[in-house]
């Protein structure tokens, strides 16, 4: 269980993390989501004592990280998979961790197998690793001490789609066995499929938190409204039929973005005799919400 209480971290006049509080419960995966520079990494660094907090505190399982003896046995940490000596072999990096934690060499073999790094790959030096392989090694390092809490910063970064699916399975299984997982990402779709709880952060502040349903409900209530996407053989005819019903329609890629539920669009198409080739509900609601909530901190303006 991770408990963040009123955490603030300032650098001179810049506030990287601004009075945030949240908790991660055992048995769940919590996604920590925000654009680049929102304060995710700073928060995670404070958790493991690498960055001192300006005010507030973080406890893990009821303890400050620095008070946990042999912390690698309780908390698995992956902050930056590239922050390892480029001249060491993958296996040696794990061996060093195992030595510090007092674990047998056999644990290193188990972890290498778990993250699907072959013995040949494990003998290569880190400078010859792809980012995806570094991430696998970093996850193996975090899991070495069989911890009950995992703190992972951008673990999916650099993984291929198969790798992302593998990691999703791994972390879900880990949480199901009672573990606490906090992982950060700046990519919504990476997190929404894996996280039970999501914390959205922008500009150092938490802008929304909850499970996917709660967040979506919040988005609809905020006036984001329901919408759907449709593509028809004759888009113009469909748009005309919908506009006649007083429904707002806008072009979106090859199709239309419609401010109504998909059932309304289907009915209008049936009445107008237009053939639909694609129709789906506004699953993008979360993405809109994410972009909207973090708009002030986005580097690109959103239209």
């Amino acid at each position, binding site marked *: *269980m991770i408990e963040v209480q009123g955490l603030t971290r300032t650098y001179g006049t810049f506030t990287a993390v601004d009075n945030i509080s949240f908790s991660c*419960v*055992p*048995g769940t995966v919590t996604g920590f989501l925000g654009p680049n520079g929102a304060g995710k990494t700073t928060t995670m*660094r404070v958790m*493991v*004592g*690498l*960055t*001192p907090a300006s005010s507030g505190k973080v406890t*893990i*399982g*009821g*303890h400050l*990280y*620095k008070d*946990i*003896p*042999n*912390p*690698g*046995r*309780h908390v698995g*940490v992956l*902050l*930056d998979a*590239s*922050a*390892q*000596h*480029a*001249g*060491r072999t993958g296996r*040696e990096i794990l*061996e*060093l*961790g195992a*030595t*510090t*934690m*007092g674990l047998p060499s056999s644990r290193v073999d188990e972890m290498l197998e778990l993250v699907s790094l072959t013995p040949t790959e494990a003998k290569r030096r880190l400078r010859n690793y792809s980012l995806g392989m570094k991430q696998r090694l970093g996850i193996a*390092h975090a899991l070495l001490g*069989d*911890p*009950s*809490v995992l703190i992972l910063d951008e673990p999916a970064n650099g993984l291929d789609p198969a790798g992302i699916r593998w990691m999703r399975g791994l972390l879900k299984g*880990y949480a*199901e*066995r*009672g*573990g*606490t997982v906090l992982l950060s990402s700046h990519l919504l779709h990476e997190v929404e499929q894996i996280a039970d709880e999501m914390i959205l952060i922008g500009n150092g502040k938490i802008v929304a938190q909850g499970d996917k349903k709660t967040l979506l409900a919040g988005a609809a209530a905020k006036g984001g409204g329901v919408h759907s996407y449709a593509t028809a053989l004759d888009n113009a005819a469909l748009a005309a039929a919908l506009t006649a019903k007083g429904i707002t329609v806008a072009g979106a890629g090859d199709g239309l973005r419609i401010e109504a539920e998909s059932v309304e669009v289907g009915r209008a198409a049936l009445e107008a005799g237009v053939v639909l080739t694609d129709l789906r509900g506004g699953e993008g609601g979360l993405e809109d919400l994410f972009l909207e909530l973090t708009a002030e901190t986005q580097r690109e303006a959103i239209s």
Partner: protein
Amino acid sequence: MSATAVAPATIDLSGTQPTPFSRLLRTEFRKTYDTRSGLWLLISIGIVTALVMVIQVSVAIAQDIAVSYNDFLTSTTFSIGFLLPVLGILLLTSEWSQRTAMVSFSLEPRRGHVIAAKMVVGILFAIAAVLVTLALAAVCTGIYGALSDIPADWDFGIKQTSFFLLLQVIGMLTGFAFAALLLNSPAAIVVYFAYSFILPTIFGIGAELIGWFADIHPWIDFNNAQVPLIDGSVSGEEWAQLVVTGIIWLVIPLAVGIWRVLRAEVK
């Protein structure tokens, strides 16, 4: 992790022992030779030490120069005298240049223990280097005695041996102290060599030209204060000068450096 479905919200730490110092020592020792650059630094310390002595013994035999066991040890100013401080520097700065400090300090949040382990590893290497040097010097003196017309001079006592060891440990620790202060490999190495080779000259010129500076010079020049250790006899005043200059050039940088490492954000 426990196999139960619902894990408690608090972590029970009663069964976990703090990481013992011996394990940190093993980890830090391993880090010195588990990369190609680290391994080659250690190998080259051995090779250079042997090479300097081989040249020395060859020249001495060829030109009928009298050399003693002591002279062979003094020649290490050009081998381990250079390289042990570099080893001391890299022990510490590589954690920052390679960013492994993040991992080291998250596995052992008591940062002072990690730094102490590195320092002990450095001292152990200095001792090992001295033992190898003593053995090499003995071999060279033996060869010299067998091949030269001049009989071998083995005069070297326990006192001089311990002074020699102290010198090498001081050299390694001075490098370590500069490293703690600067946390950057190239900067620490450059500053160390400036301190070893340029500063004594500047101090010398200053002492020549300025009267009052000549009086304080022995109390601020650490290199100069170590000369009696090389010569093998240290007077009471010279010990005092060694301690005072050591505080200035070794203890203060080390203390300030460690104080900073303990508090700084680790990136």
